[in-house]
């Protein structure tokens, strides 16, 4: 009994110690939010630190020589060129999906451009600039029996992966459609090839890329359901940099730069037909 008490005491003290540690950290965060990462600071440093993915082909990845490449990276390089006069003055910080917010909050990057989807939850922690890309659900079906509208799916089986946005969307908005659910991502594509369902409903980037690689299948509905946008994010309160990015996106829109980025980095994967479905030019959704 006595031993147990001791262990309990240790646990409590350990918990307290951690509480103090993280508490300190939080305080410091609040204090230093005041001094925002202004443009001058970046210019003084001579490089802009942009957080990108290193393993999400074709948005942010490393090529076989270890060089950063991809759609996000292409736009990030241009930011560096316009802000600091040279494309090479960008320091790419390789981030993971789970730590993107933390990198911004702890001021280890100036901008996150790691395919960052704008959500209400994230808006509480970081400031999003205007978007440069949009995603929604897409529907891919065989060319011989195309599904071109959601009505075409009525009474037929829609193939979906469990736990995805597609599942939530269909169950909520179209309960009349029969859902054929699979655990694994790879299974849904096999299921469509086998003809076990009429179409796949999934993230449009995924279905477009897949249809592009698999002749005989067509994306009949490229935009279904709620549209999500992808935007650069800065540290909460860094208004100066946020304004600069928004202005930069407007300027780039005049020369159709995001389209150029698409052609350079995404064309091979998504093909000619879906440029307008994915790209946002000038930071404004049309």
């Amino acid at each position: 009994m006595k031993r147990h008490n001791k262990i309990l005491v240790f646990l409590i003290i350990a918990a307290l110690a951690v509480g103090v540690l993280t508490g300190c950290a939080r305080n410091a965060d609040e204090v230093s939010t005041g001094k925002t990462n202004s443009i001058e600071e970046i210019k003084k440093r001579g490089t802009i630190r942009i957080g990108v993915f290193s393993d999400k082909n074709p948005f942010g990845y490393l090529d076989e020589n270890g060089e950063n490449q991809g759609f996000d990276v292409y736009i990030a390089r241009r930011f560096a060129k316009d802000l600091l006069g040279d494309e090479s003055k960008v320091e790419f910080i390789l981030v993971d999906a789970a730590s993107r917010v933390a990198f911004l909050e702890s001021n280890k990057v100036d901008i996150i451009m790691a395919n960052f989807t704008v959500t209400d939850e994230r808006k509480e922690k970081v400031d999003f600039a205007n978007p440069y890309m949009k995603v929604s659900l897409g529907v891919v079906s065989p060319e011989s029996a195309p599904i071109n509208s959601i009505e075409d799916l009525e009474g037929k089986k829609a193939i979906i992966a469990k736990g995805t946005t597609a599942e939530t969307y269909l169950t909520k908005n179209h309960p009349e459609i029969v859902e054929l659910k699979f655990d694994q991502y790879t299974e849904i594509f096999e299921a469509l090839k086998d003809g076990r369902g009429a179409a796949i409903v999934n993230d449009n980037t995924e279905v477009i890329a897949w249809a592009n690689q698999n002749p005989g299948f067509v994306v009949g509905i490229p935009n279904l359901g709620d549209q999500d946008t992808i935007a650069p994010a800065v540290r909460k309160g860094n208004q100066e940099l946020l304004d600069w990015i928004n202005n930069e996106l407007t300027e780039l829109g005049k020369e159709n730069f995001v389209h150029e980025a698409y052609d350079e980095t995404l064309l091979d994967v998504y093909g000619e037909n879906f440029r307008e479905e994915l790209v946002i030019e000038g930071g404004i959704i049309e």
Partner: protein
Amino acid sequence: MQNLGIKVLFQGMNLQRLIQGLGVTGRIAFTSIIIGSIFGMLLGIVWTSKSKIIKFLCRLYLEVFRIIPILVWLFIMYFGVTTALNVDLSGETVAIIVFTLWGIAEMADIVRGSLESLPRHQIESGKAIGLSNLGLYRYILIPQAARRMLPGAINLATRMIKTTSLVVLIGVVDVIKVGQQIIELSRIEVPTASFWVYGFVFILYFIICYPLSKLSKKLEAKWSD
């Protein structure tokens, strides 16, 4: 198809990058293992002290590292403490600090355990022949305890090497992360890349872990004479 898969390893700088990643893994693991062993040994000896306060502090230190996941420690140190103290430490430095602190804690416990497991009469006989405290440890306790702590220490070392894969979450590019980058790059052209890359990473881990268990076997054999 198989030829295609293994080719991925030799494209561009891939092989070199994997070896570099292994270098990062090795640097973090071995620095912390070496420093951790030395200070862990000292702390383990201190831990056998009769003072209740020292015992309590040692136990507290160990439990703090044992109970809180290493991943959480990495986050606290990298995102929290560096911001709080306003110092700019690289991810790799933070990783070495966290792994060293962890290594010291666990190693000290192993040393304490093996020292305390020695029969009481060893200490008494040592004192009876007039050895000083230092001599007691130097000639009687440490040599005997060393054999007992070996399996635990090797186990800890390999565990530390493998746990280094967590460092990707604070932005350090280790061998596993390089592997994932390569797999993802060739996702569409070479679907079997993951098998080859992870297979190769497995061999790399084996190459750095196996000599350790070999060494432990050798030492155990040598010390048992």
